[in-house]
């Protein structure tokens, strides 16, 4: 089968690249083994939280931090992508998900400061509207409301610990934790957030919870709930619950799987299908056919069936170490589909430092594929190995998404740009 653009990988990066290519009228295919880590993590889009990474105070302006970063670290993915593509990519992202009923708010000029389930404070630049009311710089006190029988969310844990969390120059409102007087129908084995999220799509449940909140909440208080406000219907459950409770509500993510991440993923998936992009999930990609500096086709396999997919341009968005876009064994690192050279520490003894929470981070987290300014893989050299292959997302070398708090931003910006460039061919 022949396509204009073939995107390998259906995570956040791959889907952004596909939407971006399709926007230019290209016949686009996305083929992937799975859906990436978006359904595991909190569904916030971190642009830049800390720079340099050892800083204990978060950046107040991601844009300002990125400008400094690009000047000081020309190999960072943000330097390859550029602030303009980041801006355009974020606007494109917000528009795409809004069309599927999920509103993301934020901008490049400030970081939200939101509380986490363990009572720490996290900077992030874009988040779902259902999390917006959580910024600790707002004055109103917070009621943390949990549910009897819901696993992995502990209101008193969160409330106690947030009182010791500080960000320089910011005073934290008062948090109190309560279990709501609501029967969610959990049995002795405990209910997961995902299950409760599905139940919350039911109107009778929204009514029950809304009434219980209305009774519990004090004047002027806002409410922190675990992330359980539906999966399929975008912001719907959130809005209706706020109405019933009579106050502002915000979701707090906890252990995976992530309800907010799932909701975002579903929205992107719907948009991809609506844009006429073909989406094949559950396929392995192997045996690329290349000629000189051009990739001509890849083979995709599900079980014993193999098909050959030809394309004018290809986007590689197969993820970092978790997605297996970069693989390791005891002796070496490798990129499994094209055999592209991996940049970063090759000796296992250099991968990790002695402390898990090392403020400087672990060298292995920066491992990945080096690219030029057009996101084409260059290996250790400066010339692209393939001229029609574009790399995006966690696979890029030279950044530590977790310590910088830059994962979502790099992925969306590079995905958007990769799709744009692929579409221009």
């Amino acid at each position, binding site marked *: 089968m022949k396509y204009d653009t073939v995107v390998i990988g259906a995570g956040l990066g791959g889907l952004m690249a596909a939407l971006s290519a399709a926007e230019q009228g290209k016949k686009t295919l996305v083929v992937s083994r799975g859906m990436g*880590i978006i359904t*595991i*993590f*909190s569904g916030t889009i971190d642009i830049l939280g*800390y720079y340099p990474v050892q800083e*204990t105070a*978060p950046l107040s302006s991601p844009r300002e931090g990125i400008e400094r970063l690009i000047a000081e670290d020309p190999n960072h993915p943000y330097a390859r992508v550029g602030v303009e593509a980041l801006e355009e990519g974020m606007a494109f992202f917000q528009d795409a998900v809004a069309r599927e009923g999920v509103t993301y708010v934020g901008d490049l000029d400030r970081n939200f400061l939101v509380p*986490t*389930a*363990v*009572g*720490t*404070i*996290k900077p992030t630049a874009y988040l779902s509207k259902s999390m917006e009311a959580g910024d600790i710089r707002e004055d109103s006190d917070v009621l943390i409301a949990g549910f009897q029988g819901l*696993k*992995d*969310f*502990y209101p*008193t*844990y969160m409330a*106690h*610990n947030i*009182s*010791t*969390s*500080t960000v320089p120059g910011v005073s934290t409102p008062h948090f109190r934790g309560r279990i709501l007087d609501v029967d969610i129908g959990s*049995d*002795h*084995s*405990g209910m997961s957030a995902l299950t409760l999220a599905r139940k919350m799509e039911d109107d009778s449940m929204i009514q029950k919870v809304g009434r219980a909140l209305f009774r519990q909440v004090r004047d002027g208080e806002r409410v922190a709930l675990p992330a359980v406000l539906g999966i399929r219907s975008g912001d719907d459950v959130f809005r209706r619950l706020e109405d019933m409770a009579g106050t502002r509500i915000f979701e707090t*993510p*906890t*252990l*995976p799987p*992530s309800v907010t991440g799932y909701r975002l993923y579903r929205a992107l998936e719907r948009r991809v299908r609506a844009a006429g992009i073909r989406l094949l999930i559950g396929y392995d990609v192997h045996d690329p056919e290349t000629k000189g500096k051009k990739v001509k086709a890849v083979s995709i396999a599900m079980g014993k069936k193999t098909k050959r997919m030809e394309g004018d341009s290809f986007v590689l968005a197969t993820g*970092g*170490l*978790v997605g*297996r876009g970069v*693989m*390791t*064994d*005891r002796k070496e690192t490798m990129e499994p589909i094209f055999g592209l050279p991996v940049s970063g520490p090759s000796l*296992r*003894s250099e*991968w*990790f430092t*002695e*402390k*898990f*929470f090392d*403020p400087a981070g672990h060298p*292995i*987290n920066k491992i990945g594929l080096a690219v030029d300014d057009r996101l084409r893989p260059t290996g250790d050299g400066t010339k692209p190995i393939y001229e029609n292959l574009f790399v995006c997302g966690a696979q890029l070398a030279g950044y530590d998404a*977790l*310590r910088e708090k830059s*994962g979502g931003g790099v992925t969306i910006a590079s995905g958007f740009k990769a799709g744009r460039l692929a579409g221009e061919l």
Partner: protein
Amino acid sequence: MELKTEVLVIGGGVTGAGVARDLVMRGIDTILVEKGDLAAGATGRCHGLLHSGGRYAVKDKESAEECIEENVILKKIASRTIEDTGGLFVSLPGDDESYVDRFLAACDAAGIEAQVLSLSQALRLEPNLSREAKTIVRVPDGAVDPFALTIDNARDAARRGCRVLRHTKLLGIDVAKGKITGAEVHDRVKDEHHRIKAKYIINATGAWAGHVAGLAGANVPLTLSKGSLLIFNRRINNTVINRLRPPGDGDIIVPNEPTSIIGTTSITVSDPENFQVTKKEVDLMMKEAGLVLPPSAEARVIRAYAGIRPLVAVPDADSGRDISRSFSILDHGKLDGVKGFYSIVGGKLTTYRLMAEKMVDVISGEMGVHISCSTGEVALFGSEDGEHYRLEDKFISIESVEDEKEGEVEEIVCECELVTKDEVLKVINEMKTSNLNDIRQRTRVGMGSCQGGFCTYRLLGILHELDMVPQYEANEILTSFMEERWRGIRPVLWGDQLREEQLVEGIYLGIFALDKIQPLKRTASKSKK
């Protein structure tokens, strides 16, 4: 507070606990102190192997005989801590062939049942065994849970009147006119000091024996030998697999709970608290395991750990492997002029009971006590029915709770090891503890494939709901737990284990943002350290 007793035993490893049990069974008033939790030293960091003695038969007949005798005794009295797996000695092409005959003869001479198997017979027992195996000999090795063994000895002793003081550190030993009069200890949990009056002190502190002896003005010359081990994420073998060759590194793979453990190495170190598993050791053990059990080359390693063998020093021994594994009882009255002070050092897990018997024989003689040892005849508390541990029992126990609660399923706290919330609550209530390691050792929470990556937060959440965590300290406990865990994980991160760790990092740094918390400011007056 002032406490009075006849014998003070220092050290809560299997040796100390075994000595305490023997003492009280002979009617001697005893206090056992341990600075951390039970089995915190070499006992908790060994291979968990119940030797048949085959490994020592050729070079050390006496040691081998001791092993097989104790093997039979422990299978009877400590049955619940032992999985009767049996063992195989396996030779591969390239191994010294002459060793085989010497081995068989030596087992015979030491009274160890050794049966030669054909390859097809062996494969039926061990489907993952290398098809290159040349000679395969079956022996009565077993797998033992060193924590359970130590805890059962301590519990048994406590039920007979021994006072067991955990988290209680020895600060000083009192000697007057060349005789022991007592010791000063510090209860770290309650932050209280106690003076213990006793005429006899038994130093069973393993790698710390030299340091403790020094507090009494006595000397224990030790060589510290580090032995590293790797834990695979699943069982690759059903029996204990030994290499049939002169003993070397990476020779033994022991099945333990739902994992297999490969070991070990033997490297002299100087500091009993500061040691690491090196990349070289990891690669060596992976290589050796892969030769005898080929599927292990692809299996995930979830943790690397090391224990320190305290060996009584013999001049000119370099690696520590040739020092006899037998034990020593040091009478410091005769050696150093400190009457009433004894040290018991060396030995191995399999012969702990015998070591304890010999030690208590000596001290009984001194005290004029004429009751002889009966620790080998009376079952430990918990092993009265003589039933050995079986891995399947875990599933049966979960099922039976389900029956009690009419179809309701238990809430699972640790998914890797199937530990239920009820099990955890039971330990918390019984021991009145909020210490994560206490809970871990008694339930296996956090010992599975993710090594506590997911369940630690749940555990702290549960403790918080029960108001058992000092306010505001939960995140500090969580982060220091993660740092301690890192020591065991870091040497074995590659492939799928590395991927899993990235997920864990994503949770703790991404979702929970625990990387930027600042240490709590404490008031200077009441220091916790």
